[in-house]
């Protein structure tokens, strides 16, 4: 028994050291949305630990105090039906906690589903992120640039991702910038992110979409607006234009490295923004050609019948 518990302690210690080395990705935010989410996570861990400790404390107390081996053999436990006051507390306190969490949750919902508050006054950069088995295509309609499996974004400016898929449902996720959202093939969903500081980050498809899901990863680089503009210029000077034939080849199942093109596939293969259910358009500037009828998933969903 001693060896077992010693081994157990050893493993726990190792785990603590290993995880202590660097902050966990989700709790190491690089943008306002991820920051809000990390704050909610830490808040809920805090309050929930308090509840767990109370339950543990009561449990340990009753187990020590009322174990049979400690009591006289003729002790007869009493018949107790319940006490309205005790039960009122057991209902009341959780209700207060849940009410508080509900308040925070609703507030956060509206924050993460909108342009990051910090950068509300700046014009958002619109990027179409579409997935195919098992790659990501990033189209910058205003910059007229398209990349595969890597993403350059400017810092200190809202980035509006328009997500859709050429195959199964995927989920676009850059943990350090904010939570994920699904990309589906029959509509476009919107994810609002922003980066506070320059740096490299991991992005991935988090939703199982078949054999190649594990490698369905992309690199994200955040840089200053000036560097970003330079990059766009450089792409226009060096990269080849994307053609329909070329793009069809890219769509075939498999893995690709990083690629860069001028032009976007949206010109010949527009995003599924058809308004077969929604008449609502996004309030952001939707001036880029041919995509004015934004099927914005942030709106009401009730038309889906």
């Amino acid at each position, binding site marked *: 028994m001693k060896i077992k518990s010693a081994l157990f302690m050893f493993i726990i210690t190792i785990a603590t050291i290993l995880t202590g080395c660097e902050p966990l990705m989700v709790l190491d935010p690089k943008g306002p949305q991820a920051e809000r989410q990390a704050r909610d996570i830490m808040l809920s861990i805090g309050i929930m630990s308090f509840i767990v400790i109370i339950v543990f404390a009561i449990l340990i107390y009753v*187990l020590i105090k009322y174990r049979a081996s400690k009591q006289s053999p003729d002790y007869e436990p009493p018949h107790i*039906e*319940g006490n309205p006051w005790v039960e009122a507390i057991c209902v009341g306190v*959780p209700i207060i906690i849940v009410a508080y969490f509900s308040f925070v*949750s609703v507030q956060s919902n509206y924050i993460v589903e909108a342009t990051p508050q910090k950068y509300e006054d700046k014009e958002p950069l619109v990027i179409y992120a579409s997935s195919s088995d098992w790659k990501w295509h990033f189209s910058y309609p205003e910059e007229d640039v398209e990349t595969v499996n890597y993403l350059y974004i400017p810092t200190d400016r809202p980035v509006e991702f328009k997500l859709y898929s050429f195959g199964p449902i995927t989920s676009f996720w850059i943990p350090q910038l904010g939570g994920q959202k699904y990309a589906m*093939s029959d509509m476009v969903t919107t994810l609002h992110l922003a980066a506070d500081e320059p740096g490299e980050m991991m992005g991935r498809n988090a939703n199982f979409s078949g054999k190649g899901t*594990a490698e369905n990863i992309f690199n994200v680089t955040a840089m200053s607006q000036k560097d970003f503009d330079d990059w766009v210029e450089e792409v226009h000077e060096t990269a080849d234009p994307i053609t329909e034939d070329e793009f069809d080849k890219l769509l075939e199942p498999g893995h690709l490295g990083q690629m860069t093109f001028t032009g976007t596939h949206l010109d010949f293969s527009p995003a599924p923004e058809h308004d077969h259910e929604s008449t609502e358009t996004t309030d952001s500037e939707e001036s880029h050609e041919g995509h004015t009828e934004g099927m914005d998933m942030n709106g009401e969903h009730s038309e889906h019948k």
Partner: protein
Amino acid sequence: MEFFERFAVPHPSPAIYASMVAIGLTVIAIIAGLTYFKKWGYLWREWLTTVDHKRIGIMYMLSALLMLFRGGVDAIMMRAQLATPDSKLLDAQHYNEVFSTHGVVMIMFMAMPFIFAFMNYVVPLQIGARDVAFPRLNAISFWLFFMGAMLFNISFVVGGSPDAGWTSYFPLAGNDFSTSVGTNYYMIAIQISGIGSLMTGINMITTIMKMRAPGMTLMKMPMFTWSTLVANLIIVTVFPVITVALAMGTMDRLFGTHFFTTTNGGMDMLWANLFWVWGHPEVYILILPAFGIYSEIISTFSGRNLYGYKSMVASMVVISALSCVVWAHHFFTMGQGALSNSFFSITTMAIAVPTGVKIFNWLFTLWKGKIRFTVPMLYSLGFIPLFTIGGVTGVMLAMSAADYQYHNTMFLVAHFHNTIIPGVVYAMLAGLTYYWPKMFGFMLNERIGKWTFWLMSIGFVLAFFPMYITGLDGQARRMYTYSEATGFGPLNMLSFVGAGIMAIAFALIVYNVYYSVRYASRNIGSDPWDARTLEWATHTPVPEYNFAVEPQVHSSQPFWDAKKNKHVLFPNEIEKIHMPNNSGLPFIMCSIFFVWGFSFVFAIWPLLIIATLGIFACMAYRSFENDHGRYISAEEIHETEDKLRGAN
């Protein structure tokens, strides 16, 4: 030859060939054994044709244990694959098949039959009934489940396993992206066993509403019976949804319809919604009976009545209602927007309130009690802290904005295993140990049982708690590998070690059964735990008619009050008892269902038509059959009772 090619496994490996050989040898061994020991007649008369709720319960339990080991092997394979970065143990396709079947097997073919086992065995005894309301329907339910389970399990040696996850989201599960017959197996096998579950739901509700012993009002029912009632109300509410969804999915795959496709007006999100409209209440179908078992055990081994009986009942009813309005929390990230996410976020968190009430009521049942640390009690006491952790992480996940970060990660995997294992699996093992003496007439060894519990709990903590951390560090679920640079390696290795320890614990359960069969005392009386409810008031082994005289109930713990407060349980004289006859029809009809399902999976239409006709022929036969059951005479009962009294 072309006809047979479709039955080949699309991605064979040595492991699959080895399993084929193993399955073949096992089948031959079983057939040879039955023939050698001349047990075919016994098997047919006593088990295959039985309509006795106790035997059906035991068959459910054995099937569930078998499936537990199948799903467990899947789990070990997954943890072994992920134990080291860039592992080559399994390729992506195999890993996808393994986690898909692990989920389906554990939920549909392990947890469901396990709770049905206890419902079947315990509920009629607890309410003082002779059997369930529709004994033959009960046999059909079991055999439908069994044939569904077997059909699902042959998938990995005939035609290929499903590989689109246990949630089987379209369009991934559609023909374009899942080309093997695996997803057909998923659709048909779950359909067949789901019909069985629906029948059980109707059967159990009728049994509880109509067949309680005189004096047992609704508010005097034992807590497990209450939980069964509520769980079965959820079953009849939501199982039709999955039935329809599976039928639509089958038509999409086999008949070219477009319910869930992304073209021609199909809607892939519709599948996700329908699946979780059933799928979320499903987890409460599993957990509520588990709560019922814990209530019985904690009350028995605290030597006290259950604290807050009324609030226990009320909380279950509230949970069952809320369980039907939370489904969208499984896809907060689908883009339905802040408003609907807020709604589902609040309803989900609200479930924490009634669940918290239950946790505190169990704690207060221990209070002023006289706590005996038996094996069933250890599982129940382990459940309280571990499930609390699983519950509070559930509240964390319910915060939809934060869920964007938890979704599809190992954090979620840790959460639901943290609720299902201490919640459902512990309850099943506790119930197994608790009811074992009633079922088989001897107790399982306590010492081995305690070792099992501690190994299981240590293994569980090591296996699943690291996932909370890797999830927050960005490890997505359902990924067959990860690179070393991610740094997930050490914690995944720890998970693998934990899974290994759990595997040892499960092996110990088997050893415990073997050990106890050989060495345990058979002289244990009919009430070895000093329990409180009616199932312990009859003999061990339980005679087929359960109670020679219908019990009279005056309180929610009638047997305890009969022992301590001199309530008279059996005031009447022994009279003749009406019992249902055995029938081979359920087994035959469900065997035809197996053929029906198999021909559906492979789209062999002539066979499908023949099987369909066969099923209808069985039903027609039943309609014209003249079977009014039989009577056991009073003399015969006297004789049995005397013998059983002597045995004790």
